[in-house]
Structures are given as C-alpha cells and as structure tokens.
C-alpha cells in the first residue's frame, strides 16, 4: 500500500520569502500527522501545495500514489480540505451547503442527501440543518466546514488550524470528531500552532519553522530526550520574586529558576527530593502551598528544537481568539 502523502523537496517562494524551503516528508495510510509551527512558518502554504491550490517551484507530491505535480486535479477526489477559515456559503442552509459540496464531488442526489443528513446528525447539527450558515456560531461553522470536507468520504483529510478561534467546548468537541475520523481509518494531515492539541491527537509530528522542517518523529520519540529530565514546580503563598538565600548552595545539583513571583522551579538530570526543598524553604519562612513534578511536554521539545519561545505561540493563539 503506498504512503498516503509523499512530499519530496517541496519548495515555494513568494517574492523574496521562501515560504516553503525544500521540505520532504511521508504520511502513512490512516495516520494522523501533525504539522506544527508558528504563524507564517509555511503550514498553510504546504497545505495549498498538497491540495493543488498552489504550484510548487520545486519538488514533487504524491497523494495516494498519484503524482500531483504532473496531474494536480487527478488526486482531488481522494482528498478533503478543511481550510483555516470557514468558507461555506452564508446564504445557504447547513443542509444545502453539504448537498452542494457533495454535488461538487459528483455524488448523486439521493446519495448526497443521505450523506448530508448523516453528517448533520454525527456533528450535532441536525437541529440547525435548515438554518442559514451565516447565522451559525463559530463552533458550528467549523463543524459544518469539517462535515463539508468529508461529504465525499475522502481517503485523506487536510485540516488547517481546525480549532483556531473557537471556544473551549467547541474545540474539545472538534478534537473528538477528529479522533473519530482517524479511528475510522481516514488519513489526517493536521496543521496547528496549538502544541497541546498536536500532542493529544497526532501520532507523528513535524515541526516547521521558517519554511523548513526542523524535526519529524512520533510524539513518543520526540519526548524521549526529556524522559531522564526532572522538573518540579513549587508554589508559595508568600514567596518573593527572587531566589531564596542559600537555596542554590543547599542543592548544588539542581538548577533553580523563578518564572513568576511566588513560583520556583528546579531542574535536574536525576529524581528531585521535593520534601528537602520544601523543608529548606519553610525554614526560611516561606509557606509552600503546592509542590509537583512537571511532566515533560511537547512544548518543551518544541522550544528546545526550534528555539522559539512558546509564549510567542500563546500570543498568536490569543490574537486568534482561540480558547482551550
């Protein structure tokens, strides 16, 4: 069975900017593959190249074994695309939008009507089926846009920032829907700048920065280098913004930091005896209210690999209006 997506040396330049700079990757059949990077990293350009909305300056793309650089339209019946903005027709109802999209893929009348009803049910939109798409909430719009992307039962689904700009409950519901589609065997190519989302959903992840893939691996393997690394977080009720006197000297093997007032973090390459630190702090009159081990996260891997502070990604998220 051929890989679902094969990209080799894919490059796209806009004026003076290398939007995508010679990237290569493979996505296996039925895999949920994450494409993670900050805004402007080249995620959407890559999706446009893969789906035929843009032509690569160099490189090749195969979708389901079909060479898309030679036959860009031939593979389009294999794919479904959910863009980063809901781009259905506001004047049409949810049901009409779905049947229209079904017709674009050549589904016969009865088949597209049945499929539209089935999807409206599955996506919790049956009651809003007759309402105009323009009157839907953001979360409903995203759900219907995903439904429209799979109306023709594509083998490969491209999801571009599916949960950006929607509320927490809708985002959670969407993640469940994505996981269900994946379980049903659909190959999913997911771009996101939400690290936790990629970690939670994806089997393999590529980090893309400034048009280049800097790391590509399974979530498990990406986290591997951090498995022998320990970090604890201690929160005090009356702590100061600085490091308490003598703490570093008392624990010379630990690296301490104060990320914010009242919070102390310690890192080491061996298990950390939290009780000893707490005792020292209390001897200095600091009242500890919480002490816990921080599990290694993909966010840390991302920061280590890309050098990009995740604060910047968070700010992007906030600007996008997204909730987790």
């Amino acid at each position, binding site marked *: 069975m051929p890989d679902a997506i094969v990209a080799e040396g894919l490059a796209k330049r806009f004026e003076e900017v290398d939007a995508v700079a010679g990237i290569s990757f493979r996505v296996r059949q039925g895999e949920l593959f994450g494409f993670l990077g900050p805004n402007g990293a080249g995620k959407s350009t890559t999706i446009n190249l893969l789906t035929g909305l843009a032509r690569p300056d160099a490189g090749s793309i195969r979708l389901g074994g079909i060479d898309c650089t030679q036959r860009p339209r031939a593979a389009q019946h294999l794919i479904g695309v959910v863009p980063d903005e809901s781009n259905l*027709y506001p004047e*049409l109802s949810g049901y009409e939008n779905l049947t229209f999209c079904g017709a674009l893929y050549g589904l016969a009348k009865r088949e597209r009507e049945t499929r539209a009803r089935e999807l409206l049910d599955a996506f919790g939109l049956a009651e809003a089926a007759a309402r105009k798409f323009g009157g839907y909430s953001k979360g409903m719009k995203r759900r219907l846009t995903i439904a429209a992307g799979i109306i023709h039962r594509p083998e490969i689904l491209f999801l571009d920032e599916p949960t950006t700009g929607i509320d927490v409950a809708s985002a959670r519901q969407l993640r469940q829907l994505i996981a269900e589609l994946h379980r049903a065997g659909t190959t999913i190519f997911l771009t996101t700048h939400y690290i936790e989302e990629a970690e939670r959903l994806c089997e393999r992840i590529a980090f893309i920065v400034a048009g280049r893939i800097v790391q590509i691996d399974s979530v498990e393997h990406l986290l591997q280098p951090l498995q022998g690394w320990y970090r604890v977080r201690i929160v005090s009720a009356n702590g100061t913004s600085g490091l308490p006197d003598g703490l570093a000297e008392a624990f010379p093997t630990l690296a301490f930091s104060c990320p914010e007032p009242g919070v102390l973090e310690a890192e080491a390459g061996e298990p950390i005896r939290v009780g000893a630190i707490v005792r020292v702090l209390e001897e200095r009159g600091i009242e500890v209210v919480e002490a816990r081990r921080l599990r290694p996260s993909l966010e840390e891997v991302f920061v280590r690999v890309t050098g990009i502070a995740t604060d910047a990604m968070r700010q992007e998220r906030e600007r996008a209006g997204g909730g987790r």
Partner: protein
Amino acid sequence: MTGAVIRWGRWGRAFWSILRKDMRTYYLKPPNISWGLLFPLAWTGMFFIRSGGVDDIRSLLPGLATISILFGTTSMLAITVTFEKKGRSFERLLLAPIPLELLMLAKTSGAILFGVANACVPVILAAFLVDLSTVAWGSFATAVVLIAVVSTFLGLFVAVAVSEVFEAQTLSNFFRFPMIFLCGLFFPVGDLPLLLQPLAWLLPLTYGADALHGAVHGGNGLPIALDLGILCAYGVGLFLLSLVNIRRRWIA
C-alpha cells in the same frame, strides 16, 4: 466508455449544482432581479420617449439590448467571482475534482442567462410600441446570446484580474462606458471620427451591435454571419485568457 460516461455524469452534476447555487444565491435575489429589470427599463423608457417615431424605436432596440446585456453581465461577475474569491469560498470550487474550464463555464452560465433576460426587457417594451414581425429572430437571438457570452467573459476577465469587488466595478467602467459610444450602439461606427473608427472595430460589442442592427432593421455594415463568427472568436479568446489569468494568479 463507461468511465467517460460516469465522469461526465459527475461533472454534469457539479456544473448544474454550481449554476443552480449561483442562480439562487445571486441572480434570483430581489435586488438583482430589480436591477436586471429596472436598468434596461430606465434606458429603454428614456430612449423611446426621446425617439422620433416607429423607425427610431427599431434603430434604438439593438443598442438598448446590447447595453442591457453588457451592464447586467459585467456587474454580476464582480460578485459571483471576485467576491467569492475574496471570501475564499471560491477555493472550495477550485478544490473540486472538475476541470477548470467546466468550473468557469458553470460560474459564468448564470451571468449569460441573466444577460439574455436583460435583453428581453427592451424587446418586450418595443413589442408594445412597434411591429416587430420583420425582425430576423433567429439572427437576433443568436446575436443576443453571443453578446451575453462575450460580455460575460469580458466581465470574467476583469473579475479575475483584480482582488476587490470595487476594483472590478471600476475597471469594468473603463470598458463599459467607452463601448456605449464606440461600438455603434446608437449611431453607426462610420459616423465616428476617423481616428476612433479602428478602435471601434477592435471592440467585440461593435460586431454584436452590427448583427442586431442587421437582424432588426437590416442596418448592418458586415455580413451577420461574419459578425457572429467574430463574436465567437472574442468569446473563446476572452475565456481562454481568463483561464490563463486564473491559473497564474489563483493557482500559482
């Protein structure tokens, strides 16, 4: 053979759905129906009131039909194409597994039908005022359809060349208003200053208006078949040019 039939069946469904969606979403909306009726009505009423008699109405009809088609079609393309591209819903169509040629024909068919309907307004009004039994209806209908096709593809060419709806309208006016005077709609091209006459023969509507004049009152300067042939060539040329632009600008 069976594969080709299935493929064409799928394309046919896609074509019909796009056309039907555009008709419902744009062309059959009350504002557009009223625009499609009021604009030709206003022009026709104004010209007929100022006309000097039955012969005048006959000579005005080709120009009024042409102008109604031109403004009706070019105005709509800015919405059905530029607006959808701006709102990114056009991407959904570009992602569908149908040939670009078929997609653009589906997107423009509504405008062609709208243009033909616009042309009916002055004809119906004229039918109440003068005897139109001498009109060569076959040539007239063919010319109306071809003018609608060429005007639509002219609108498509403009709609694809710009990014904003207002730019499409502005750029369209650069073509539309000069054509009212240059294309022999209301007076013969031969009456234009000599310097402007070559320009008039470069414009497709000149041939459309000439064919209509021939069909209505025999006042054509070129054989009607030649007029229609040239209109066809313009139609094909503008359509192909628009496709090149779409590939260059939108699927680059």
